[in-house]
């Protein structure tokens, strides 16, 4: 039931996290098109 280890937490709309910048940009894009 709890497979939290497979879940990544990424900032939404923030680009100041170098390691997740691509994902953050993607999340921002998703927001912009919402």
């Amino acid at each position, binding site marked *: *039931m*709890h*497979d*939290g280890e*497979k*879940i*990544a*937490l*990424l*900032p*939404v*709309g*923030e680009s100041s996290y170098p390691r997740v910048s691509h*994902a953050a940009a993607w*999340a*921002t894009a*998703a*927001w912009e*098109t*919402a």
Partner: protein
Amino acid sequence: VPAAAIVAAALRGTPYAAGAREALERAARAPGDEARALGAVRDGAIEGVVVYGTFAGSRGAGRLHVVAVSGPSRRTGAGRALVKGALLHLSEAGARFLLAELPDDTGALPGAREFLATLGFREESRVEDFFRDGIALSFQRREIAG
């Protein structure tokens, strides 16, 4: 599915959708101490979102704006992971506790109280008939170990 759509779907038809959307919009466009958002991503798709921060002008008073998880992903740990992520970040930022201002509305928000309870939240105080007759504002508090 965009984070905004998850929040909108989770709160559709409730009186709480507008406030949650505003919090997410602020967090996404201008993340800062008062509001920032995390998305839970599994297999490349956003399954949920948490918006959290600190109360404006406070010292170490964390605020849980909203947690929303898409329907198919509920009860899979996404919501717990999101709140734990927020708690970790707030702890690192020096927050002493996290407070959720929960509408005590089991019709519109089924399971919300129980969800928070499993994460260690306890009712700090409540304001009866706050949102409307019969719907209280429940302050749910979770300590953050210092």
